[in-house]
């Protein structure tokens, strides 16, 4: 696969890992946070922790849109879809996320019309094909996904589609990073920046992280060589005492972002004054809502939204894991009451949530001791 396989070349990966070991030395302990859930997933999937030196600690950030979605919002969406003739459409990622009465898949088994879609435009297509039903698209995602939702809504308006609405749970990444940096327990040296969000927002929005918060940040791609190269760049910055925003993912990320995407978002969305993030609490100006011009496509304007609020059990330490203060296995419920089969917290539900990723890919490795004889 072009533009994929080159960045998975084993020899080059080994070589880059060697360079990381050389740059990292032995004295200093580095704490780097990868913000994006996609990076968390990639790190585990490619087994990158196995080839990094022990003094580089990767901390998983809150960039997992499923993980930060409060359970009450899932309940709200499912409650609306209980109405007869409503089709609940969502990405595969949402299908096993539990609400208090079960997940979308469980509702489907009980008779709700639930469809998995790969694209918001597939949800709109469902609306065209089922004129006697209402299609409710449960939208999630950061700025990577929001423009596609926006464009789909614009297309729906242009076509005069009457039976389509979006239950909008899009959130924005900068407030999440701010919340991390504002957290008193946080000790971080640098950031591995979200590569695909940056194809939309560009690299400028991170400048305050380097200039004000004084942490280097490298916007990174998702293949093993991308992530490793970003770590090299961060180490080079830290060794030289520098603090800037760099773009490792140049082949795809434009420094100024994607104007058409930003325009589409501006056309359809407005910022909510505040939004609840599971594990992080209420954050102001951190989520998107469909504006009045497109109200007919806003599920929350067309339907009665129960506004259910569900608090997580006190024992669940999702917030601390989300902020990177605790490692997944340090949460008291990890692997016991909270597993991928019976997830209690959001981080165990999504396959890119740090707890699920750790559980699925990693935690039994601890029993193995040294892994250097593997390859």
């Amino acid at each position, binding site marked *: 696969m072009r533009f994929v396989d080159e960045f998975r070349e084993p020899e080059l990966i*080994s070589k880059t*890992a060697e360079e990381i070991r050389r740059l990292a030395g032995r004295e200093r302990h580095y704490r780097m946070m990868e913000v994006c859930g996609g990076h968390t997933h990639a790190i585990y999937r490619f087994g990158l922790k196995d080839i990094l030196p022990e003094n580089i600690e990767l901390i998983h950030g809150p960039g997992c849109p499923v993980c930060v979605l409060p359970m009450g919002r899932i309940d709200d969406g499912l409650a609306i879809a209980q109405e007869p003739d409503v089709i609940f459409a969502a990405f595969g990622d949402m299908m096993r996320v539990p609400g208090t009465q079960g997940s979308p898949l469980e509702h489907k088994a009980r008779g709700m019309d639930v469809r998995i879609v790969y694209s918001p435009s597939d949800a709109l297509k469902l609306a065209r094909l089922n004129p006697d039903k209402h299609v409710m698209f449960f939208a999630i995602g950061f700025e990577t996904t929001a423009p596609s939702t926006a464009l789909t809504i614009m297309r729906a308006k242009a076509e005069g589609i009457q039976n389509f609405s979006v239950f909008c749970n899009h959130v924005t990444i900068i407030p999440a990073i701010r919340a991390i940096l504002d957290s008193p327990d946080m000790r971080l040296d640098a950031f591995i920046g979200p590569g695909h969000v940056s194809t939309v927002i560009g690299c400028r929005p991170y400048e305050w992280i380097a200039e004000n918060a004084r942490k280097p940040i490298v916007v990174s791609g998702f293949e093993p060589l991308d992530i490793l190269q970003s770590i090299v760049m961060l180490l080079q910055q830290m060794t030289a005492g520098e603090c800037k925003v760099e773009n490792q993912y140049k082949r795809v990320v434009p420094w100024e972002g994607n104007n058409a995407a930003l325009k589409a978002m501006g056309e359809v969305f407005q910022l909510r004054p505040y939004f609840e993030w599971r594990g992080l609490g209420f954050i102001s100006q951190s989520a998107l809502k469909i504006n009045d011009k497109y109200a007919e496509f806003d599920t929350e304007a067309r339907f009665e939204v129960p506004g259910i609020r569900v608090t997580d059990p006190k024992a669940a330490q999702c917030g601390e894991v989300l902020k990177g203060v605790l490692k997944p296995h340090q949460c008291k419920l990890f692997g016991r009451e909270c597993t991928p089969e019976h997830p209690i917290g959001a981080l165990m539900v999504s*396959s890119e949530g740090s707890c699920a990723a750790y559980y699925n890919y990693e935690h039994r490795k601890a029993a193995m001791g040294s892994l250097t004889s593997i390859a």
Partner: protein
Amino acid sequence: MRFRDLQIEMAHGAGGKASRKLVEGLFAPLLFGAMPGPLGDSARVDINGTPVAITTDSFVVKPLTFPGGSIGELAVNGTVNDLAVSGAKAEALVVSYVLEAGLPTPILEAEVRAMAKAAREAGVRIAAGDTKVVEHGKADQMYITTTGIGRLIHGVNIDPASVRVGDKIILSGPIGDHGITILLARGELDLEADLSSDTRSVFPLVETLIRAAGPGVRWMRDPTRGGAATSLNELARDCGLGMVVFEDQIPVRDTVRGACELLGLDPLHIANEGQFLAVVSPEYADAAINALNLAPGGNEAQVIGEVREQPAGTVLVTTLYGGSRIVDMLVGDPLPRIC
């Protein structure tokens, strides 16, 4: 009975962890008595001293037909294969149809013809059958169940307890073809590819393997729902050893790989209907692969890993550059993701 879930969910039928919980927690204790031992693909019954293997499987597939096959073919090959990987040659099948009222006759006829053809090709007799019809809205047009009996082949003893550190893990061919074909055929994801189901009887290849390496064959399984990951996890659990798989050795077609990357799926979790896994002692591994590669349909068979002591009870996939990841059974069916 140890099964604690209050009701049956879709996940319980997906072949992963939830299925295992249901089988081990409810069916096994109530039907098989105390501590039946590891559950295999088929059961062994002694009839007047003659060992006979018997197995059953239900086929619930949407859509009924897809590139490379249809539910009828799956229903024959699936059961023949369960017997094959238990070291048995299928002699006869009986079939049970649950049909939805309103099912057009040509569709039923097509599936029955497909079954007859698959049975001829597999060299197995369809000896008897039964039909029930349920109301419109049930049975997704048709459900087919086949039960098969076969004679155990001499010279092979399939037993997870016989697996040893150092044994080689062999895969008969590329994985993921069937599951991805079905996913694409459902049409919900709007993807197109030149891909077809790999449904076939694996008995000829199994026979080849046994002839070349019989005394060294410890275990076999056909990785259907849940994929190769699930089968290997079951073995790892049953024998308490570690299954180490070399990622670069796993045969996967480019299109399957492309679809999996696009949808965020792992080929190791995708269903197959024409492949099998085998664990073979190191002395016999080369002979096994050589024989398989020379046999029709076996040219892509390869050693994909080996059994080690650690990580015990777990499947570990390693890369050429020294990275590794645990591959667990899924809870339910694999779902496409965008995150």
